[in-house]
């Protein structure tokens, strides 16, 4: 525990440093496709190596497992076409929220199958709004879409989650998480019982999703996941999940539709869905910044049938510690970028602690060695005394022997037995062939 606290204290300088470098490199980065800034990547990879080195230490540490060191968000809209404007607005409003709470573009994977801002039908070209008051332009001037148009497919989505991508895949299109990453997976589109339609051609099933999450778990690609889905019959989508440490929530039960909240009569389409609208309302009003102590439980408790017009569902059973532990997670654990980076700050210190650990380890090993030797010596003494006094001690050793060693004892006897056996076989064969001839 003290170790983790130390991490907390020592982490800050490093965290600030990375954000500083990122801010410097921001103006040069292009809008599409987005590129990771080099410093973050190096830090990420070193962290991974470090974690594998320190694995035994983590296993010993226990409680420190509850902490995560990075926040990622996978925001997926699965429908295209003008009349599905609201789905893109849904996902863009969540995108805006997670960015507001500090998750950088490099750690957000945004999938948008269509470009509503540039649709000729859009009465307000270049913008996307999720509210008829049109106060916030979600398209703004700082948006990075990682997968767009026909790139948004089931295959790409599953490859993204499980990181089964080719070498040519740019880092901006990869989910570079590790076993200390908290991931927010938000999906919206047109769904049905245990499936979610991707564009107009294909759909992802609940089992596909469950298997993808399981593979992520096996590959140590997440620490905890908050899975949130806003479609018709959304709750069926997470019903098949079976991997640990996932909190899942959806907008509607089996056979229930997920409704849109309101339409903008100048744009001429519905602009947001109810479930997403009320999630955003909570996030905007209760989670004003990353220091918010509102929990996931508070968020889920804010869902009511009166507001959403469908029964929103929550699934805690996969989470270690169940509902109680899951509900205690902060909203910012998933929507924000509050990290608990352990170790580092100064290299000397880190090495010192590591060497200290090694020394302690070698000491323990040496101690174990001496203890083993002592035990052996004691045993040897005991057998020697037993040989003098009686034969009882030898019995167990004989029983343990299973295979007999080859010896030259009774050489002739063995030869005769063998020859007799051979002769017997030959006689049997002869008898058999004779009988055959007779019959």
């Amino acid at each position, binding site marked *: 525990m003290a170790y983790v606290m130390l991490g907390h204290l020592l982490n800050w300088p490093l965290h600030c440093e990375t954000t500083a470098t990122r801010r410097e490199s921001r103006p040069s980065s292009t809008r599409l496709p987005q590129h990771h800034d080099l410093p973050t990547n190096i830090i990420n990879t070193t962290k991974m190596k470090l974690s594998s080195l320190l694995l035994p230490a983590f296993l010993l540490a226990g409680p420190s497992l509850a902490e995560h060191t990075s926040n990622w968000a996978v925001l997926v809209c699965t429908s295209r*076409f*003008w*009349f599905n404007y609201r789905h893109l607005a849904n996902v863009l409003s969540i995108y805006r929220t997670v960015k507001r709470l500090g998750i950088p573009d490099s750690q957000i994977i945004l999938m948008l199958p269509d470009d509503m801002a540039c*649709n*000729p*039908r*859009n*009465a307000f*070209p270049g913008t996307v709004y999720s509210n008829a008051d049109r106060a916030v332009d979600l398209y703004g001037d700082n948006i990075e879409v990682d997968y767009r148009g026909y790139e948004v497919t089931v295959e790409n989505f599953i490859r993204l989650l499980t990181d089964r991508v080719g070498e040519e895949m740019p880092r901006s299109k990869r989910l570079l998480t590790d076993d200390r990453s908290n991931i927010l997976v938000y999906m919206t589109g047109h769904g049905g019982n245990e499936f979610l339609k991707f564009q107009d051609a294909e759909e992802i099933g609940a089992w596909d999703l469950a298997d993808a999450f399981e593979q992520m778990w096996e590959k140590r690609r997440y620490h905890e996941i908050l899975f949130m889905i806003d479609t018709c019959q959304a709750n069926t989508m997470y019903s098949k999940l079976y991997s640990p440490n996932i909190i899942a929530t959806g907008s509607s039960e089996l056979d229930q539709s997920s409704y849109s909240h309101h*339409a903008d*009569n*100048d744009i*001429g*389409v*519905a602009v947001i869905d109810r479930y997403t609208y009320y999630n955003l309302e909570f996030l905007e009003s209760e989670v004003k910044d990353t220091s918010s102590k509102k929990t996931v439980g508070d968020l889920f408790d804010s869902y009511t049938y009166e507001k959403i017009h469908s029964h929103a569902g929550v699934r805690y059973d996969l989470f270690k510690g169940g509902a109680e532990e899951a509900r205690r997670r902060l909203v910012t654990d998933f929507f924000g970028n509050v990290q608990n980076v352990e170790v580092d700050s100064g290299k000397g210190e880190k090495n010192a602690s590591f060497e200290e650990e090694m020394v302690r380890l070698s000491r323990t090993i040496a101690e174990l060695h001496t203890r083993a030797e002592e035990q052996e010596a004691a045993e040897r003494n005991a057998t020697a005394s037993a040989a003098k006094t009686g034969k009882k001690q030898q019995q167990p050793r004989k029983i343990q022997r299973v295979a007999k060693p080859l010896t030259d004892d009774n050489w002739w006897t063995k030869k005769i037995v063998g020859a007799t056996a051979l002769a017997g076989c030959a006689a049997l064969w002869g008898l058999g062939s004779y009988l055959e001839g007779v019959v």
Partner: protein
Amino acid sequence: MPRLLSSALALRRDPRILKIPPYLSLLCILVGAVWLFLLPLNEYSRRTYISENALLPGQVHTYFGGSDQNVLRAYKQEVNSLVGKSNVEINDKLESIVRGLGLKTARQNFTYHAAGRTFEGENLYAILQAPRGDATEAIVLVAAWENVKHEVNKNGVPLVLTLARYFKRWSLWSKDIIILLSPDSIAAPQAWVDAYHDAHDSSRVASLPIKSGALQGAIAIDYVQENRFKSVHIVYDGVNGQLPNLDLINSVVNIAGGQMGMGVALQEMWNHNDKYPDRLRTMLRGMLKQGLGLASGPHSSFIPYHVDAVTLQPFGEGWQDEMAMGRVVEGTFRSLNNLLEHLHQSFFFYLLMHRERFVSIGTYLPSAMLVAANFTIMAIFLWMKSGQPEIPAASTTESSDKDDAPTPTTERDLFLPLAIVALSGSLSAIPLYIFNHVPESALTPLFYLFLLINTLFPITLSLTITTLFSPNLQQYHLVKSFSLLLLGMFLSSLATLNFSLAMLIGLLSAPLSFVKPSSSPVSRIVGFVLLNLTSPPAVLLASAAIWGLNVGDILREAAVAWHVTGTYSAVVVWCVWWPAWLAGCVCVLGRPGRDQEEEKKVKKA
């Protein structure tokens, strides 16, 4: 199983089985007719609904109004000053207005000849290019200078001009908008749509100098009324009974009825209380129009090209003004603009009985199919009957060796029956040609002459056949069998294309199933008189009398429809119904077995 089969086969030989078909075919006709009258009930019809998600009708605010009203007034002034001028003069003025709006304009000449008349004129059209669209699709706004009743479209043309000016100000069009100002409501739009799809006869219709993308929909405005109006009348019948996608009608109903709060009427049912009689009346009017297959407005010519189109006519005394009408068009265009693909989700085959009630093809088709099936059943029955000896074996010996004895069959003499059916079929080309190629003035006298010939000809034909070939009963059965087989076949396939026409012809020719040659002269005369009452020209005359129309006008309209819009109803009447009727007359007037009787007399002597 084998026993079951053999008993089934034995049943086939049972003479009683041959007694069933006439009753069965009568039952088919009755059920088919009753079926039709059940359709308006709540249990059989359905409420309309929007199938296409992309349409989103009535979800946008419409802003047509305000200063546009002054613009409209100005255009109305201009248009009023053009009334009575020639087509070219009108087009010159309108073109200068449209070009002033910044739209590309073009003109197209056409000349049609039909019923001794010449239909010529010049279409004016303009293309409003979508500012951010890709010019692959277009929607059409039509205002004909004259409507189908030849009244000047005094409000419609200025409204379309104002709308063009208004639409030009929006940047949200995903499709080009084509403004078509045609001199009339039938021939001109037909010429334009034909040329747009390069399906025109270039000797009569000029090609279009400029074009846009694939047409996705068309709205025609027929706004003659001067005062404020109450409701909108949607005219939706296309050429040959083809209909626009139901989603388009539903969208207009939704926008005009739901969003704008004005009434919507169909099939000239100005007051509709949504009760059974009104529903039935609406449906039957729709069926009649569909059956005739004539063009009912500027929209009709678009529908055969799979361009969904309707004509909107304001009617009644109310408080809605031109701006409200403009907003209905604006809302509908915004919906069409939302489309991502051709309207295809909803029904193309339906019968509307109220603005929010319809039956789809699956529900109504069986009635026409049953009527058509009655002819086929009778045809098969007569074929089987013709294969049996005329006088069955004595019924006393039948019971003992019925199972063993093979069904006696006689040889069928096919030549004469086939020749008669072929003759009546080929003769049908004569009325078809004459009525479509005679000048208008000659149509009425010619019709009465034809009526006379039509009455006398079967008698002559029958006399000729009986004296020359003296056919027996079997041959008469075969004549009737072949002619009914053809009729049943044509009608059942027609039912899928134009349900109403198939149903009408089917019911009118139903007596043909039950006429048969008789030896008594009285029943022959009665049968012939009955058949003459349901002959095609008699039905035409009767319907003209019922609706107070001139027979000559009906025939002229039919000839124009044949030449201009390609209506095929005349083919069905003259080449399907008439030959079957003629064959029926030959049967009813036939005197079968005369030779046999004579033979008997000879033997006795």
